[in-house]
């Protein structure tokens, strides 16, 4: 199963020495808004709790997004001490310092809320090219990992934000959308349109691999892109 990666915030953060409190620094979109908050620590506590406490008790206008708090919806993705995490799935130890920023590579709407439109536009472009088809597969089949990584994406955008090619502003379709395409073309209806294969698509990938490193679901878009580029298009069944 591709569970959620849990990176403890304390391993990346430095002890703040301020006992019983978590020191939260947030990159605000309004540079004059308060950005540093001391939040009383609690057990258990996840990054989302720290953000909520800052919002409830310190600055009611602090904006961030979340929904399921179960690692399923992908809307709570933020950068914590430099790396993308799901705020709801990342535990925090008391007396640590957290630096929380919005995902890079996407326009900021407000504070930690980014505009996912570029990510979704590319995803939409792919699914409009791909015909849905009845796919029958035996569970536990050979290329299960590969197949899963195309299907269990929660569209959190972390891979897109981390990808230097996507961030360069070119029309590159990005890891999640290409992984989505690869999954389908590797299935029975294997006919990849030119746009997916071209420089906006698979050949545009520079094989940096950042996508697979950051994915909070431990999916491996880089592997899918690579396998499709090598022309490996066997059926999964």
């Amino acid at each position, binding site marked *: *199963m591709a*569970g*959620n990666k*849990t990176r403890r915030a304390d391993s990346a953060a430095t002890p703040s020495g301020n006992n019983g409190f978590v020191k939260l620094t947030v990159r605000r979109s309004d540079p004059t808004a308060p950005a540093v908050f001391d939040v009383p620590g*609690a*057990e*258990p*506590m*996840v990054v*989302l*709790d720290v953000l*909520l406490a800052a*919002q*409830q008790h310190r600055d*009611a*206008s*602090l*904006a961030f*997004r*979340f*929904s*399921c*708090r*179960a690692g*399923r*919806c*992908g*809307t709570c993705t933020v950068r914590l001490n430099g790396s993308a995490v799901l705020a*709801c*799935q990342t*535990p925090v130890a008391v007396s640590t310092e957290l630096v929380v920023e919005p995902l890079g590579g996407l326009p900021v*709407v*407000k*504070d930690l*809320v980014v505009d*996912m439109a570029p990510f979704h536009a590319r*995803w*939409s472009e792919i*699914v*409009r090219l*791909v015909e*849905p*088809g*009845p*796919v*029958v*597969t*035996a*569970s536990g089949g050979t290329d299960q990992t590969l197949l899963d990584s195309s*299907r*269990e*994406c*929660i*569209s959190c955008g972390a891979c897109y934000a981390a990808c230097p090619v996507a961030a360069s502003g070119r029309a590159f379709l990005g890891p999640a959308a290409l992984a989505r395409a690869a999954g*389908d073309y590797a299935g029975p209806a294997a006919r990849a349109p030119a746009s997916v294969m071209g420089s906006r698509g698979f050949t545009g990938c520079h094989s940096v691999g950042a996508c697979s490193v950051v994915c909070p679901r431990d999916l491996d878009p880089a592997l899918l892109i690579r396998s499709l580029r090598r022309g490996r298009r066997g059926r999964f069944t």
Partner: protein
Amino acid sequence: MMPGTAPQTIATDIAIIGSGAAGLMATIHASDSARDLDITVVSKGAVARSGCSIMTLGFNAAVGPGDSVETHFTDLLRRGEFLNDQQLAWVLASTAPEMIDELGRYGCLFDRTPDGALTVLPFAGQSVNRHIARREQTGLEIMSRLRDQVLRIEPRLLEDVRALDLLRSDSGDVTGVVLLDMRSGKPIILSARVVVMATGGAATIYRVASPAREKTGDGLAMCLRAGAELRDMEMMQFLSVGLAAGPSRISGLLLSEVLRFAGGHLTNVAGHRFMADSAPEAMERASLEQIVRASYTEIVEGRGWQNDGVLLDVSHLGAGVVADRYPELVDRSRLAGHDLTTGPVPVAPTSHFQIGGAVIDADCQSTLPGLLVAGEDAGGVHGAAWNGGNGIAESTVFGARAGERAARLATERPHQDAAAGQIADILERHHAPLTRDQGTVPATIADRLKEAMWQGAGPVRTEAGLRRAADTIDELRDEAAQTMAPALIESNPRWHEALDVGNQIDVAAVVVQSALEREETRGVHFRDDHPDRDDAGWLRYVVARADGNRLELDSRAVALDRLAPGREEAP
């Protein structure tokens, strides 16, 4: 409305409120019925990534060996203790298998046996295996492929836009809905020939709850304020395995009922396996409602762990076994600071699924012309108790029917004007928190509401307790009329909390009043002062309707057209 600004107006054929399984299925089926329809999907959170459909683990459909539509139907009625609308339950059981095929056509993969047949899993409350799953990602699989399908249709998608209230014509028809773009803070008037309500109920109104944050009863409150009838609102399904994590927002996330059946022990803080007191034979394998009531009693009587939960322990199965079988649950327990592989984890009854909802017919028509309701916002399918797997089945089955019905209605119904003054009233009411320079904090009111519901209208109810909850709700309603949020319209979380809590209060009041009405015990509704099921007096469903500020309650006999208690063989 902010003075001087004319709100944007959009005219659409069909307005679909909610982007869970019900909303997206409605979109797909409306579009399939008539390609040229203008369809607008309004979603308070991310499209297909808000609400609970995405978190589901299994889908019930009678496709397995030895199963049949009749058997699924009979299971629904037994579980629902005959309070179900039998026509709706029949539609669910008979259409669920087609839905699995349809989802397959959209590219959904479900687990299969080596010979290619769908794997059907056992589940408590089912007489035959019929739980269909995609590893542990069923909801994600379904919602991802439904979203892809909707993206191909290209309806107007209004994401991070919330519906505030329904608009009605002078003759009482629903004519559209007033929306609020949560990012820009600007209102939108959406005029529609038909509105489909699919916001997923209000199971968030208890202290510990499993649903996603958007589900604050907005749809039910809107239906109520517009004058629609709601039924079975006293019926709220609790599960026994919500993480008890104190004030952390992860409280209420689910472990799994499966752990009890795998040999898990439930103890109170003194280490006593308390199921020995109420179910000495079955112990932890007792019925869900028995477990929920016993756990609740331990906690409210002060024998819980940190007053918060009872302790669920499977570590005696062996750390390796637990880690192997339940990796995701182990991760979740660790998130809460415990470890399922090595020791007990505190759990509490968690409010999970709103069984009651709008009164609908088999095509999702509510009691208001122009308004269809589908999924968790609708009532009647499940009766007095719900079973896992029937929720996502309901949302897809009835979402699809709502879409088809909406497409037909859209050709018959003209756009109509809302009654004079309504838009201004709605906007003024919803902007009020921004205009106060002092007032109450919405989150505090929400916390008190959830505590009052847990204490007085939870898994064990009495008349006195329900009346106390009703009194608290009245007080909170007054305080909620004085909430304050910073005077800024863009992305203002506190403002939205204020709007949320207003809806939660409206729905909670109906839950409590309906629970007072039903002076018997049936399904999830346990009245400690009326502990027996009373088929002679109460094969009746409670219907609530608001008339201005007054709530009218009424009860109607269930039509026992296919099955009745004692006549339980398949129809």
